[in-house]
Protein backbone atom coordinates (compact mmCIF):
# COMPACT_ATOMS: atom_id res chain seq x y z
CA UNK A 1 0.00 0.00 0.00
CA UNK A 2 1.23 3.49 -0.91
CA UNK A 3 0.73 5.51 2.28
CA UNK A 4 0.22 9.26 1.89
CA UNK A 5 -0.17 9.87 5.63
CA UNK A 6 1.89 7.92 8.14
CA UNK A 7 1.46 8.58 11.83
CA UNK A 8 3.59 6.81 14.41
CA UNK A 9 3.25 6.95 18.20
CA UNK A 10 1.68 10.41 18.00
CA UNK A 11 1.08 12.01 21.41
CA UNK A 12 -0.11 15.46 22.46
CA UNK A 13 -0.43 16.70 26.02
CA UNK A 14 -1.63 20.12 27.10
CA UNK A 15 -0.10 21.31 30.37
CA UNK A 16 -0.62 18.89 33.25
CA UNK A 17 -3.84 17.29 32.02
CA UNK A 18 -4.18 13.78 30.58
CA UNK A 19 -2.90 13.40 27.02
CA UNK A 20 -5.40 14.63 24.41
CA UNK A 21 -3.87 12.15 21.98
CA UNK A 22 -2.04 9.11 23.37
CA UNK A 23 0.40 7.16 21.28
CA UNK A 24 -1.71 6.72 18.15
CA UNK A 25 -0.42 5.17 14.91
CA UNK A 26 -2.18 4.80 11.59
CA UNK A 27 -1.64 5.08 7.85
CA UNK A 28 -3.84 6.48 5.11
CA UNK A 29 -3.57 4.96 1.63
CA UNK A 30 -3.12 7.33 -1.31
CA UNK A 31 -6.40 7.92 -3.12
CA UNK A 32 -8.62 6.59 -0.33
CA UNK A 33 -11.44 8.19 1.61
CA UNK A 34 -10.96 7.83 5.35
CA UNK A 35 -13.33 8.76 8.18
CA UNK A 36 -11.95 9.66 11.56
CA UNK A 37 -14.70 9.25 14.13
CA UNK A 38 -14.99 9.82 17.84
CA UNK A 39 -17.13 11.43 20.53
CA UNK A 40 -16.56 15.07 21.50
CA UNK A 41 -13.23 15.59 23.20
CA UNK A 42 -11.86 12.26 21.96
CA UNK A 43 -8.87 13.87 20.25
CA UNK A 44 -10.10 14.27 16.67
CA UNK A 45 -9.49 17.99 16.34
CA UNK A 46 -6.15 17.80 18.13
CA UNK A 47 -5.04 15.11 15.68
CA UNK A 48 -6.18 17.12 12.66
CA UNK A 49 -4.40 20.21 13.98
CA UNK A 50 -1.17 18.23 14.32
CA UNK A 51 -1.54 16.78 10.81
CA UNK A 52 -2.14 20.25 9.37
CA UNK A 53 0.85 22.00 11.07
CA UNK A 54 -1.32 24.04 13.46
CA UNK A 55 -0.06 22.19 16.54
CA UNK A 56 3.27 20.61 17.31
CA UNK A 57 3.11 17.02 18.59
CA UNK A 58 4.52 16.34 22.06
CA UNK A 59 5.94 13.05 20.78
CA UNK A 60 5.78 10.77 17.74
CA UNK A 61 6.22 11.34 14.03
CA UNK A 62 3.98 12.37 11.17
CA UNK A 63 4.71 12.13 7.45
CA UNK A 64 2.39 13.82 4.99
CA UNK A 65 3.12 13.22 1.30
CA UNK A 66 6.70 12.41 2.28
CA UNK A 67 7.29 15.48 4.48
CA UNK A 68 7.47 16.04 8.20
CA UNK A 69 5.23 18.91 9.41
CA UNK A 70 7.69 19.71 12.19
CA UNK A 71 10.70 20.21 9.95
CA UNK A 72 9.16 21.13 6.61
CA UNK A 73 5.77 22.75 7.31
CA UNK A 74 5.55 24.61 3.99
CA UNK A 75 5.94 21.46 1.90
CA UNK A 76 3.20 19.84 3.98
CA UNK A 77 0.99 22.91 3.61
CA UNK A 78 1.25 22.75 -0.17
CA UNK A 79 0.23 19.11 -0.06
CA UNK A 80 -3.12 19.47 1.66
CA UNK A 81 -6.28 21.54 1.49
CA UNK A 82 -8.55 21.89 4.49
CA UNK A 83 -12.12 22.73 5.33
CA UNK A 84 -12.24 23.67 8.98
CA UNK A 85 -14.99 22.81 11.41
CA UNK A 86 -15.91 26.50 11.75
CA UNK A 87 -16.28 28.78 8.74
CA UNK A 88 -13.01 30.49 7.85
CA UNK A 89 -13.90 32.73 4.93
CA UNK A 90 -13.47 36.48 4.83
CA UNK A 91 -17.07 37.64 4.81
CA UNK A 92 -16.17 41.13 3.62
CA UNK A 93 -14.70 39.80 0.39
CA UNK A 94 -16.47 38.25 -2.57
CA UNK A 95 -16.38 34.54 -3.37
CA UNK A 96 -13.91 35.20 -6.17
CA UNK A 97 -11.65 37.31 -3.95
CA UNK A 98 -11.57 34.66 -1.25
CA UNK A 99 -10.34 32.17 -3.83
CA UNK A 100 -7.97 34.65 -5.44
CA UNK A 101 -6.34 35.50 -2.09
CA UNK A 102 -5.91 31.83 -1.32
CA UNK A 103 -4.29 31.28 -4.72
CA UNK A 104 -1.83 34.13 -4.18
CA UNK A 105 -0.98 32.93 -0.66
CA UNK A 106 -0.22 29.48 -2.08
CA UNK A 107 1.84 30.93 -4.92
CA UNK A 108 -0.38 29.61 -7.73
CA UNK A 109 0.64 31.50 -10.93
CA UNK A 110 -1.98 33.91 -12.24
CA UNK A 111 -2.93 32.04 -15.44
CA UNK A 112 -3.40 28.71 -13.66
CA UNK A 113 -5.15 30.44 -10.79
CA UNK A 114 -7.81 32.11 -12.91
CA UNK A 115 -8.52 28.95 -14.86
CA UNK A 116 -8.68 26.85 -11.71
CA UNK A 117 -11.02 29.32 -9.97
CA UNK A 118 -13.45 29.21 -12.90
CA UNK A 119 -13.30 25.42 -12.94
CA UNK A 120 -13.84 25.05 -9.19
CA UNK A 121 -16.66 27.59 -9.00
CA UNK A 122 -18.42 25.56 -11.67
CA UNK A 123 -17.79 22.36 -9.75
CA UNK A 124 -19.38 23.70 -6.56
CA UNK A 125 -22.11 25.46 -8.60
CA UNK A 126 -21.26 28.98 -7.47
CA UNK A 127 -20.21 30.45 -10.83
CA UNK A 128 -23.12 32.88 -10.94
CA UNK A 129 -22.41 34.10 -7.39
CA UNK A 130 -18.70 34.69 -7.82
CA UNK A 131 -18.87 38.45 -7.29
CA UNK A 132 -21.24 38.35 -4.33
CA UNK A 133 -20.03 39.04 -0.83
CA UNK A 134 -19.61 35.91 1.24
CA UNK A 135 -21.59 37.47 4.08
CA UNK A 136 -24.72 37.05 1.94
CA UNK A 137 -24.12 33.32 1.45
CA UNK A 138 -26.05 30.54 3.18
CA UNK A 139 -24.24 27.99 5.34
CA UNK A 140 -24.25 25.45 2.53
CA UNK A 141 -22.86 27.90 -0.02
CA UNK A 142 -20.07 28.88 2.35
CA UNK A 143 -19.18 25.23 2.81
CA UNK A 144 -19.05 24.68 -0.95
CA UNK A 145 -16.88 27.74 -1.38
CA UNK A 146 -14.53 26.50 1.32
CA UNK A 147 -14.21 23.18 -0.46
CA UNK A 148 -13.40 24.99 -3.69
CA UNK A 149 -10.80 27.05 -1.84
CA UNK A 150 -9.25 23.99 -0.24
CA UNK A 151 -8.78 22.46 -3.71
CA UNK A 152 -7.42 25.53 -5.47
CA UNK A 153 -3.73 24.72 -5.11
CA UNK A 154 -4.16 21.13 -6.37
CA UNK A 155 -3.59 19.42 -3.01
CA UNK A 156 -3.02 15.69 -2.78
CA UNK A 157 -5.01 15.43 0.44
CA UNK A 158 -8.22 17.13 1.48
CA UNK A 159 -8.98 17.39 5.21
CA UNK A 160 -12.62 17.95 6.13
CA UNK A 161 -13.36 18.60 9.78
CA UNK A 162 -17.09 18.01 10.32
CA UNK A 163 -17.89 19.53 6.93
CA UNK A 164 -21.62 18.79 7.09
CA UNK A 165 -22.33 20.19 10.55
CA UNK A 166 -25.50 22.27 10.49
CA UNK A 167 -26.32 21.59 6.83
CA UNK A 168 -29.64 20.27 5.57
CA UNK A 169 -29.80 16.73 4.13
CA UNK A 170 -29.95 18.02 0.52
CA UNK A 171 -26.77 20.05 0.90
CA UNK A 172 -25.05 17.23 2.75
CA UNK A 173 -25.90 14.82 0.02
CA UNK A 174 -24.63 17.18 -2.63
CA UNK A 175 -21.46 17.88 -0.75
CA UNK A 176 -20.57 14.23 -0.44
CA UNK A 177 -21.17 13.67 -4.13
CA UNK A 178 -18.64 16.45 -4.92
CA UNK A 179 -16.18 14.85 -2.57
CA UNK A 180 -16.64 11.41 -4.10
CA UNK A 181 -16.34 12.86 -7.58
CA UNK A 182 -13.08 14.60 -6.65
CA UNK A 183 -11.73 11.43 -5.18
CA UNK A 184 -12.67 9.47 -8.28
CA UNK A 185 -11.62 11.99 -10.92
CA UNK A 186 -8.63 13.76 -9.39
CA UNK A 187 -7.44 10.96 -7.15
CA UNK A 188 -7.48 13.18 -4.07
CA UNK A 189 -7.12 11.46 -0.72
CA UNK A 190 -9.89 12.55 1.65
CA UNK A 191 -9.59 12.49 5.43
CA UNK A 192 -12.72 13.61 7.26
CA UNK A 193 -14.38 13.71 10.65
CA UNK A 194 -18.13 13.67 11.22
CA UNK A 195 -20.75 12.87 13.83
CA UNK A 196 -23.14 11.49 11.21
CA UNK A 197 -22.38 7.79 11.19
CA UNK A 198 -24.42 7.00 8.09
CA UNK A 199 -22.27 9.47 6.12
CA UNK A 200 -19.10 7.77 7.26
CA UNK A 201 -20.54 4.35 6.44
CA UNK A 202 -21.62 5.45 2.99
CA UNK A 203 -18.61 7.48 1.88
CA UNK A 204 -15.52 6.16 3.67
CA UNK A 205 -13.58 3.12 2.53
CA UNK A 206 -11.73 3.03 5.81
CA UNK A 207 -12.85 4.15 9.27
CA UNK A 208 -10.81 4.81 12.40
CA UNK A 209 -12.53 5.39 15.74
CA UNK A 210 -10.72 7.39 18.38
CA UNK A 211 -11.74 7.67 22.02
CA UNK A 212 -9.95 9.13 25.05
CA UNK A 213 -7.00 9.92 22.80
CA UNK A 214 -6.53 6.33 21.57
CA UNK A 215 -7.64 4.54 18.43
CA UNK A 216 -10.12 1.94 19.65
CA UNK A 217 -11.05 0.34 16.33
CA UNK A 218 -10.14 0.52 12.66
CA UNK A 219 -11.39 -1.07 9.45
CA UNK A 220 -14.06 -0.83 6.80
CA UNK A 221 -17.61 0.01 7.85
CA UNK A 222 -18.61 -3.58 7.21
CA UNK A 223 -15.71 -4.94 9.25
CA UNK A 224 -16.53 -2.69 12.22
CA UNK A 225 -20.17 -3.78 12.15
CA UNK A 226 -19.12 -7.39 11.96
CA UNK A 227 -16.63 -7.00 14.80
CA UNK A 228 -19.28 -5.55 17.12
CA UNK A 229 -22.13 -7.69 15.71
CA UNK A 230 -24.12 -4.50 15.02
CA UNK A 231 -26.60 -3.66 12.28
CA UNK A 232 -25.52 -0.07 11.83
CA UNK A 233 -22.30 1.86 12.17
CA UNK A 234 -24.01 4.02 14.79
CA UNK A 235 -24.56 0.95 17.00
CA UNK A 236 -21.01 -0.21 16.37
CA UNK A 237 -19.75 3.25 17.34
CA UNK A 238 -21.75 3.24 20.58
CA UNK A 239 -20.53 -0.26 21.42
CA UNK A 240 -16.93 0.85 20.97
CA UNK A 241 -17.09 4.22 22.69
CA UNK A 242 -19.76 3.69 25.36
CA UNK A 243 -23.02 5.49 25.98
CA UNK A 244 -22.19 8.30 28.34
CA UNK A 245 -22.47 11.88 27.10
CA UNK A 246 -19.22 13.79 26.68
CA UNK A 247 -18.57 17.32 27.79
CA UNK A 248 -18.58 19.73 24.90
CA UNK A 249 -16.60 22.92 24.70
CA UNK A 250 -18.61 26.11 24.01
CA UNK A 251 -19.73 25.85 20.44
CA UNK A 252 -18.28 28.31 17.99
CA UNK A 253 -21.66 29.74 17.05
CA UNK A 254 -22.31 30.70 20.69
CA UNK A 255 -18.92 32.35 20.82
CA UNK A 256 -19.65 34.28 17.65
CA UNK A 257 -22.99 35.49 18.95
CA UNK A 258 -21.24 36.71 22.07
CA UNK A 259 -18.67 38.47 19.98
CA UNK A 260 -21.23 40.16 17.80
CA UNK A 261 -23.04 41.65 20.76
CA UNK A 262 -19.75 42.63 22.38
CA UNK A 263 -18.70 44.26 19.13
CA UNK A 264 -21.82 46.38 18.90
CA UNK A 265 -21.42 47.43 22.50
CA UNK A 266 -17.72 48.18 22.30
CA UNK A 267 -17.63 50.15 19.08
CA UNK A 268 -16.57 53.69 19.66
Amino acid at each position, binding site marked *: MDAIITVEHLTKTFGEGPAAVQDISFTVARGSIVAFLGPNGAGKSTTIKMLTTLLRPTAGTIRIAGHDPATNPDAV*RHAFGIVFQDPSLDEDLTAFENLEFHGV*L*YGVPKETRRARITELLALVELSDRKDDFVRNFSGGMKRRLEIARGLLHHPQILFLDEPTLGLDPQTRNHLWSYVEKLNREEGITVFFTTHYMEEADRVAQHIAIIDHGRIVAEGSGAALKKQTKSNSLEDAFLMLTGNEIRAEAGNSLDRMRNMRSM*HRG*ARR
Partner: protein
Amino acid sequence: MNGISVMWLREVKRFFRSKSRIVGSLGQPLLFLVALGYGLGPVFQQAGQGNYLEFIAPGIIGMSIIFTSIFNGMQVIWDRQFGFLKETMVAPVSRLSIMFGRTLGGATVAALQGALVLVLTMLVGFRPISWTGIIPALVVMLLIALLFSALGMVVASLLRDMQGFQLIMNFLVMPLFFLSGALFPLNNVPPALLLVARFDPLSYGVDALRLFLLGQGVFNITLDIAVLVGMIGVFLALGSYFFSRIEV
Protein backbone atom coordinates in the same frame (compact mmCIF):
# COMPACT_ATOMS: atom_id res chain seq x y z
CA MET B 1 6.41 38.45 -0.39
CA ASN B 2 3.06 36.98 -1.46
CA GLY B 3 1.90 36.94 2.12
CA ILE B 4 2.77 40.56 2.71
CA SER B 5 1.15 41.92 -0.44
CA VAL B 6 -2.01 39.87 -0.13
CA MET B 7 -2.59 40.78 3.51
CA TRP B 8 -1.93 44.43 2.73
CA LEU B 9 -4.35 44.37 -0.19
CA ARG B 10 -7.01 42.77 1.97
CA GLU B 11 -6.89 45.56 4.55
CA VAL B 12 -6.98 48.29 1.93
CA LYS B 13 -9.84 46.66 0.01
CA ARG B 14 -11.89 46.29 3.14
CA PHE B 15 -11.32 49.95 3.99
CA PHE B 16 -12.55 51.27 0.65
CA ARG B 17 -15.52 48.89 0.78
CA SER B 18 -16.87 50.08 4.10
CA LYS B 19 -18.12 53.58 3.35
CA SER B 20 -19.95 53.64 6.66
CA ARG B 21 -16.71 52.98 8.50
CA ILE B 22 -14.98 55.87 6.74
CA VAL B 23 -17.79 58.31 7.41
CA GLY B 24 -18.30 57.01 10.96
CA SER B 25 -14.68 57.46 11.90
CA LEU B 26 -14.75 61.10 10.79
CA GLY B 27 -17.55 61.89 13.24
CA GLN B 28 -15.46 61.81 16.39
CA PRO B 29 -12.63 64.04 15.10
CA LEU B 30 -15.21 66.51 13.83
CA LEU B 31 -16.90 66.59 17.24
CA PHE B 32 -13.59 67.18 19.01
CA LEU B 33 -12.61 69.90 16.57
CA VAL B 34 -15.88 71.78 16.81
CA ALA B 35 -16.64 71.31 20.51
CA LEU B 36 -13.10 71.83 21.79
CA GLY B 37 -11.76 74.06 19.05
CA TYR B 38 -14.61 76.54 19.16
CA GLY B 39 -15.68 75.82 22.76
CA LEU B 40 -12.32 76.23 24.47
CA GLY B 41 -10.94 78.57 21.83
CA PRO B 42 -11.82 81.86 23.58
CA VAL B 43 -10.29 80.69 26.90
CA PHE B 44 -7.14 79.63 25.12
CA GLN B 45 -6.97 82.97 23.31
CA GLN B 46 -7.41 84.92 26.57
CA ALA B 47 -4.55 82.96 28.11
CA GLY B 48 -2.41 84.34 25.31
CA GLN B 49 -1.82 80.98 23.63
CA GLY B 50 -3.20 81.84 20.21
CA ASN B 51 -5.73 79.96 18.09
CA TYR B 52 -6.85 76.72 19.81
CA LEU B 53 -8.45 75.21 16.73
CA GLU B 54 -5.12 75.45 14.92
CA PHE B 55 -3.35 74.07 17.97
CA ILE B 56 -5.49 70.94 18.34
CA ALA B 57 -5.86 70.18 14.62
CA PRO B 58 -2.60 68.14 14.51
CA GLY B 59 -3.60 66.51 17.82
CA ILE B 60 -6.95 65.44 16.39
CA ILE B 61 -5.22 64.00 13.32
CA GLY B 62 -3.00 62.04 15.71
CA MET B 63 -6.05 60.89 17.65
CA SER B 64 -7.83 59.54 14.60
CA ILE B 65 -4.67 57.70 13.50
CA ILE B 66 -4.02 56.08 16.87
CA PHE B 67 -7.65 54.92 17.24
CA THR B 68 -7.87 53.58 13.71
CA SER B 69 -4.53 51.82 13.73
CA ILE B 70 -4.86 50.13 17.11
CA PHE B 71 -8.34 49.05 16.15
CA ASN B 72 -7.05 47.65 12.84
CA GLY B 73 -4.31 45.75 14.63
CA MET B 74 -6.89 44.25 16.90
CA GLN B 75 -8.79 43.01 13.86
CA VAL B 76 -6.70 39.86 14.30
CA ILE B 77 -8.90 38.95 17.27
CA TRP B 78 -11.87 39.20 14.97
CA ASP B 79 -10.26 36.98 12.39
CA ARG B 80 -9.46 34.47 15.09
CA GLN B 81 -13.08 34.51 16.23
CA PHE B 82 -14.47 34.19 12.73
CA GLY B 83 -11.93 31.64 11.62
CA PHE B 84 -10.13 33.49 8.83
CA LEU B 85 -6.93 33.55 10.86
CA LYS B 86 -6.72 29.73 10.55
CA GLU B 87 -6.83 29.98 6.78
CA THR B 88 -3.74 32.19 6.82
CA MET B 89 -2.01 30.03 9.44
CA VAL B 90 -2.11 26.87 7.31
CA ALA B 91 -0.92 28.72 4.20
CA PRO B 92 2.65 28.07 3.08
CA VAL B 93 3.87 31.57 3.93
CA SER B 94 5.76 32.64 7.03
CA ARG B 95 3.89 34.07 9.94
CA LEU B 96 6.29 36.96 9.87
CA SER B 97 5.12 37.99 6.40
CA ILE B 98 1.48 37.68 7.45
CA MET B 99 2.14 39.87 10.46
CA PHE B 100 4.05 42.45 8.39
CA GLY B 101 1.41 42.53 5.67
CA ARG B 102 -1.37 43.09 8.14
CA THR B 103 0.55 45.81 9.96
CA LEU B 104 1.39 47.62 6.72
CA GLY B 105 -2.21 47.32 5.55
CA GLY B 106 -3.61 48.59 8.83
CA ALA B 107 -1.10 51.45 8.83
CA THR B 108 -1.95 52.44 5.25
CA VAL B 109 -5.62 52.60 6.14
CA ALA B 110 -4.98 54.60 9.32
CA ALA B 111 -2.71 57.05 7.48
CA LEU B 112 -5.38 57.55 4.79
CA GLN B 113 -7.82 58.20 7.57
CA GLY B 114 -5.41 60.75 9.03
CA ALA B 115 -5.15 62.49 5.64
CA LEU B 116 -8.96 62.65 5.48
CA VAL B 117 -9.03 64.23 8.93
CA LEU B 118 -6.44 66.77 7.77
CA VAL B 119 -8.82 67.74 4.96
CA LEU B 120 -11.62 67.93 7.51
CA THR B 121 -9.64 70.26 9.79
CA MET B 122 -9.01 72.51 6.80
CA LEU B 123 -12.74 72.57 6.08
CA VAL B 124 -13.49 73.84 9.58
CA GLY B 125 -10.90 76.56 9.37
CA PHE B 126 -7.43 75.11 9.96
CA ARG B 127 -4.71 76.63 7.74
CA PRO B 128 -1.29 74.91 7.71
CA ILE B 129 1.61 77.36 7.67
CA SER B 130 2.79 76.13 4.29
CA TRP B 131 1.59 73.72 1.63
CA THR B 132 5.01 72.10 1.40
CA GLY B 133 4.80 71.19 5.09
CA ILE B 134 1.97 68.83 4.24
CA ILE B 135 4.22 66.31 2.50
CA PRO B 136 6.50 65.61 5.49
CA ALA B 137 3.39 65.72 7.70
CA LEU B 138 1.92 62.86 5.64
CA VAL B 139 5.12 60.86 6.20
CA VAL B 140 4.81 61.49 9.95
CA MET B 141 1.20 60.28 9.79
CA LEU B 142 2.37 57.05 8.18
CA LEU B 143 4.99 56.60 10.92
CA ILE B 144 2.42 57.14 13.67
CA ALA B 145 0.10 54.71 11.90
CA LEU B 146 2.83 52.05 11.61
CA LEU B 147 3.78 52.42 15.24
CA PHE B 148 0.29 51.94 16.60
CA SER B 149 -0.72 49.25 14.08
CA ALA B 150 2.26 47.26 15.32
CA LEU B 151 1.21 47.93 18.91
CA GLY B 152 -2.31 46.78 18.03
CA MET B 153 -0.85 43.51 16.69
CA VAL B 154 1.05 42.98 19.94
CA VAL B 155 -2.13 43.51 21.95
CA ALA B 156 -4.22 41.33 19.64
CA SER B 157 -1.71 38.48 19.77
CA LEU B 158 -1.94 38.48 23.56
CA LEU B 159 -5.73 38.57 23.84
CA ARG B 160 -7.91 35.57 23.10
CA ASP B 161 -11.16 37.43 22.52
CA MET B 162 -12.78 40.84 22.43
CA GLN B 163 -13.53 40.75 26.18
CA GLY B 164 -10.36 42.72 26.78
CA PHE B 165 -11.24 45.37 24.23
CA GLN B 166 -12.73 47.88 26.69
CA LEU B 167 -9.76 47.39 28.97
CA ILE B 168 -7.38 48.23 26.13
CA MET B 169 -9.43 51.27 25.13
CA ASN B 170 -9.58 52.65 28.66
CA PHE B 171 -6.14 51.77 29.95
CA LEU B 172 -4.03 51.99 26.83
CA VAL B 173 -5.53 53.98 23.98
CA MET B 174 -7.23 56.74 25.96
CA PRO B 175 -4.21 57.47 28.20
CA LEU B 176 -1.91 57.42 25.17
CA PHE B 177 -4.13 60.00 23.54
CA PHE B 178 -4.95 62.25 26.51
CA LEU B 179 -1.42 62.32 27.93
CA SER B 180 0.26 63.03 24.60
CA GLY B 181 -0.15 66.79 24.48
CA ALA B 182 -2.61 66.41 21.61
CA LEU B 183 -5.06 68.69 23.42
CA PHE B 184 -2.79 70.95 25.49
CA PRO B 185 0.66 72.52 25.07
CA LEU B 186 3.38 70.56 26.85
CA ASN B 187 5.63 73.57 27.52
CA ASN B 188 3.84 74.84 30.64
CA VAL B 189 2.52 71.64 32.23
CA PRO B 190 3.64 70.34 35.67
CA PRO B 191 6.92 68.40 35.43
CA ALA B 192 5.23 65.12 36.38
CA LEU B 193 2.83 65.37 33.45
CA LEU B 194 5.64 66.30 31.10
CA LEU B 195 7.57 63.26 32.29
CA VAL B 196 4.59 61.00 31.53
CA ALA B 197 4.16 62.62 28.13
CA ARG B 198 7.81 61.93 27.38
CA PHE B 199 7.10 58.20 27.71
CA ASP B 200 4.16 58.39 25.34
CA PRO B 201 5.22 57.79 21.71
CA LEU B 202 2.19 59.69 20.45
CA SER B 203 3.63 62.90 22.03
CA TYR B 204 6.47 62.77 19.53
CA GLY B 205 4.14 62.05 16.62
CA VAL B 206 1.85 64.96 17.45
CA ASP B 207 4.89 67.17 18.08
CA ALA B 208 6.30 66.36 14.64
CA LEU B 209 2.91 67.05 13.03
CA ARG B 210 2.78 70.42 14.79
CA LEU B 211 6.29 71.27 13.65
CA PHE B 212 5.42 70.63 10.02
CA LEU B 213 1.90 72.04 10.02
CA LEU B 214 2.18 74.91 12.52
CA GLY B 215 5.89 75.53 12.84
CA GLN B 216 5.79 75.07 16.61
CA GLY B 217 6.72 72.18 18.90
CA VAL B 218 8.36 71.28 22.19
CA PHE B 219 10.83 68.58 21.17
CA ASN B 220 13.03 68.78 18.11
CA ILE B 221 12.27 67.03 14.84
CA THR B 222 15.26 64.69 14.94
CA LEU B 223 14.21 63.39 18.34
CA ASP B 224 10.58 63.04 17.17
CA ILE B 225 11.48 60.98 14.12
CA ALA B 226 14.08 58.93 15.99
CA VAL B 227 11.56 57.97 18.69
CA LEU B 228 8.88 57.11 16.14
CA VAL B 229 11.19 54.96 14.04
CA GLY B 230 12.76 53.33 17.11
CA MET B 231 9.39 52.43 18.62
CA ILE B 232 8.14 51.05 15.28
CA GLY B 233 11.12 48.69 15.39
CA VAL B 234 10.41 47.67 18.97
CA PHE B 235 6.70 47.00 18.42
CA LEU B 236 7.28 45.17 15.11
CA ALA B 237 9.77 42.89 16.86
CA LEU B 238 7.41 42.26 19.79
CA GLY B 239 4.50 41.80 17.38
CA SER B 240 6.34 39.19 15.31
CA TYR B 241 7.36 37.34 18.45
CA PHE B 242 3.88 37.19 19.96
CA PHE B 243 2.17 36.60 16.61
CA SER B 244 4.39 33.60 15.93
CA ARG B 245 3.23 32.09 19.21
CA ILE B 246 -0.50 32.33 18.51
CA GLU B 247 -2.24 28.97 18.62
CA VAL B 248 -5.50 28.68 16.74
